[in-house]
């Protein structure tokens, strides 16, 4: 199913189509919302709010060709609105939140974020096994350096060295990756 067909289904209030849209986009939109809001619960609320509005007012999708950029924009707008509301700054209008003019080249912030995270995961996979393990324990399992040292039966200095090595390697891999992506991008442009 293409994005266009999916949008058409949702516009016709097809519940199966809506569920599909939700499941495809939920993860990346949630991450995007979290990136702004830093609260898991609020992030989830923002995502659900956006989907709810689309469901209750399918006309919002009338001008939309591709759901990705639109949904990303909605998430960002809603997240920013939430932040500003928390700061008691009600400058943004409700209408603006869901209103969105699709331009020819739309950036899809959630998609960009998702791709960045995929690259990061690939970079993590390229680390030496012990280094990767320490990085994963530190970043994914949220273990303190001392805990990692205890569990892996290594010194805290070794843990620090692994972390340092990990950061450095990922940074290098990602910068190479970015050059490669840039190359791909230009390749696309000048084809």
């Amino acid at each position, binding site marked *: 199913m293409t994005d266009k067909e999916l949008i058409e289904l949702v516009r016709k209030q097809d519940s199966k189509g809506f569920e599909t849209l*939700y499941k495809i986009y939920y993860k990346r939109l949630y991450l995007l919302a979290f990136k702004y809001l830093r609260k898991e619960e609020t992030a*989830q609320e923002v995502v659900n709010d956006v989907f709810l509005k689309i469901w209750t007012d399918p006309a919002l999708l009338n001008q939309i060709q591709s759901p990705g950029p639109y949904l990303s924009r909605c998430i960002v707008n809603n997240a920013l609105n939430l932040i500003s509301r928390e700061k008691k700054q009600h400058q943004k209008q409700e209408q603006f939140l869901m209103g969105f003019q699709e331009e020819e080249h739309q950036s899809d912030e959630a998609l960009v974020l998702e791709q960045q*995270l995929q690259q*990061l995961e690939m970079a993590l996979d390229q680390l030496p096994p012990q280094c990767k393990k320490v990085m994963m324990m530190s970043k994914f399992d949220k273990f303190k*350096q001392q805990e990692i040292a205890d569990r892996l039966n290594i010194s805290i200095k070794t843990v*620090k060295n692994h*972390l340092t090595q990990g950061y*450095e390697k990922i940074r290098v891999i990602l910068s190479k990756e970015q050059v490669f992506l840039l190359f791909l991008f230009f390749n696309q442009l000048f084809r």
Partner: protein
Amino acid sequence: MTNINHLHNIPYSLIADQAEGNISAEGLEQLELWKNTSPEHLKKYNELLLLEDQLRLLALSKHIDPQKAWENFAPSLENTTQQSPKSSVRKLTTYYKWAAAAAIVLSILYFYKPEFFTGIKTIRTAKNEYQKVILPDGSEINMNENTTLSYNSWLFLKNRKVNLQKGEAFFEVKHQQAHPFLVKMDEVNVRDIGTSFNLKIEQEQIVVIVNSGKVALEANSSKVDSVTSKSLLLSEKDKGIFNRKTKTLSSQKNTWLNYKSWCDHKLQFIQTPLEEVARDLEDAFGKAVILQDADLKNRKLSAYFDQQSEEEIIRIIAASLQLQVTKKDDTFVLYK
């Protein structure tokens, strides 16, 4: 800190400590110092913060379960928006409304126009009501008052069958070799061989008078088993009678000239006693004619009336026989 001077001068370890929220005051001071020594350092620091952040998002993404999120989210769709369930409910109820409307229309049709479902047309005439029916094959039926007949309009051209339930009717049948014309009654059938005839169901007998052509009067064997003769072939001017009490068929020459005057309004009298004239007039018009004086009964009348009203006819009779006539309600009284 040896790390600061190695690996492009980036204090990864301090940044890791900070990310963990476990940085010492001394470490934080060193980190701040490093950040502020050059814009290049600050840029690197920011890059690493971004990386740190992305690592956290990546960690978070491992716990995201869209299926579970959907299961939590879906009920709120039904509760708060009610758009989709409502619209589907609305669709359903409109569907039922239409179905109910259709059911009502169909049952009304079934009640008032059963032929809509079966093709069977039933025609009834009330008192003083006369009706001419033209059948699908072009045959004609003149129905007298208080008469009921039915036929299947769908099958009629293949199966020319008319049910005469009660009353009297004059049939003019278009002859078709391949499709005989059958009039079914409860106890007898009249099979026509291309003719016109009058059929009357009376309390005690069923009478067929053949106007032209030939008909067969048959006892319906499923209803009547004690009939001695199962069928009679009747020709022009013949009168066939089924006696409903004795269940017997008989035939005789028809002497009654005005048997079909009720439908053609033609009355013929040849030396007819006035008593019979009065009866024929009543039969033809449904209005009683009373002879006030007993000796009027045997006065004879010869006359021919065509398409005249009853009142005209009565006045002509009265004039020709030198009688007086009065009209009381719907009754004519003849007297000297």
